[in-house]
């Protein structure tokens, strides 16, 4: 009986192993450069911005930046609100900050998920949602691979965003 159990355990371990991927290296960091472009408008309001990471199953892993100010407008970040915000008030309280003026910004993701655990190596998607009152909305998605090799990529400007640079390094 014991032997059988052990075999079962070993067998399930073997099956499960491929999904038991290694965590990304401890030193792995993703630096993000982000630009709020200058937009000529009769009524200009600072945009609401959400930047987050989802895993291969499209499950949110970590909200990196959230620039909204008042929580009444969180829902206007339609995708972020539906996927992340509405489900976890603690995330909102943890990351929310004021809206930012036109300019260039730099922030980093430490490779940890929302619970503070280092994420596994694998395929992820980088998301940016930007919404401006009296203005437009852009929803940017970029597939990324987080492993033991660094990368640097640029995401083309949209109406509401300037050039975005992702720099994943170890």
């Amino acid at each position, binding site marked *: 009986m014991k032997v059988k159990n052990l075999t079962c355990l070993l067998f399930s371990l073997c099956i499960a192993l491929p999904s038991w991927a290694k965590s990304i290296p401890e030193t792995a960091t993703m630096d993000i450069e982000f630009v709020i472009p200058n937009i000529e408008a009769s009524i200009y309001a600072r945009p609401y911005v959400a930047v987050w990471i989802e895993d291969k199953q499209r499950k949110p892993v970590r909200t990196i930046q959230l620039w909204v100010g008042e929580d009444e407008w969180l*829902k206007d970040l339609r995708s972020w609100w*539906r996927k992340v915000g*509405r489900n976890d008030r603690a995330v909102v309280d943890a990351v929310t900050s004021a809206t930012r003026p036109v300019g260039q910004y730099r922030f980093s993701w430490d490779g940890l998920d929302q619970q503070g655990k280092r994420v596994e190596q694998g395929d992820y998607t980088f998301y940016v949602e930007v919404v401006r009152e009296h203005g437009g909305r852009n929803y940017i998605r970029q597939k990324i691979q987080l492993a033991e090799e660094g990368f640097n990529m640029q995401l083309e400007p949209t109406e509401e965003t300037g050039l975005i640079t992702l720099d994943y390094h170890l």
Partner: protein
Amino acid sequence: MLNKKINTLIVLCSILAGSMLSSVANAHPRWVLPSHFTISKEGGDWLTFDVTASHGTFVMDKPAGSETAQIIMPDGRQERPDFVLRGKRRSVFDFFFSEEGTHRVQINNVPGYVTHYKAGKRDTVKRIRANKVERSNLLPETSRDISTTVMFTRAETYITVGKPSDKAFPLEGKFLELQPITKPADIVATEPVRFQFFFNGKAQAGVKAEITRDGTLYRNQQDQIDVVSDEQGFIEFTPEIAGRYILKASHTDKLADSPLADKMNASVHLTFEAILP
């Protein structure tokens, strides 16, 4: 004493007249349009609702009342609107939503009875507002092809504060009902939506529903989606464009042993939004 009786009579008359008016308005589909479907503000927020009866999608027309409006809270209890006013082409009510979860807002009318009959040589179908009990006193002696229909419409929508929930939707077991299998706050343009219909509490096949996007006044075609429920009462459709929609579903069936009507014609008019993908 007599005064009191007269007063009661007046009130009764006005209620009757009111219900008749709302049934007359029934010819125009009655629906509700909330100012928002989603609330993210901590501590809650006010929303406002327009109620009207009209042939255009989100074009105000006839002043359907909001006096019967109810808000089914996420825990299942019922609340009334905070402010109700009636204009000439719509009525309005406001409500402060503060509890987390999904609320159903419903403006259901009272069942209305219509008797169709033919009398005279021309075979014209005539109608009176009477149920089976009342009709015997009202119909001409020569009446034939007599049939009484009970009509009931649910005008409803869903409001979600924070995280969606699904406790607010127990079946009443009466008339036509829609169960949102896809949570109303999860309706996203380009993604399939699944609902289920129940007629008198049982899953109902063959319920016809048409789904129309906002703004019929500004396009040449209705561009409606037509669906019919399957054996288990399910419908599935995909709103391709983000926006506000009305789903109008109705079902007619014979009533075997109702003392008041021969047929039932029950409708659900659901307003929902498909958010941007």
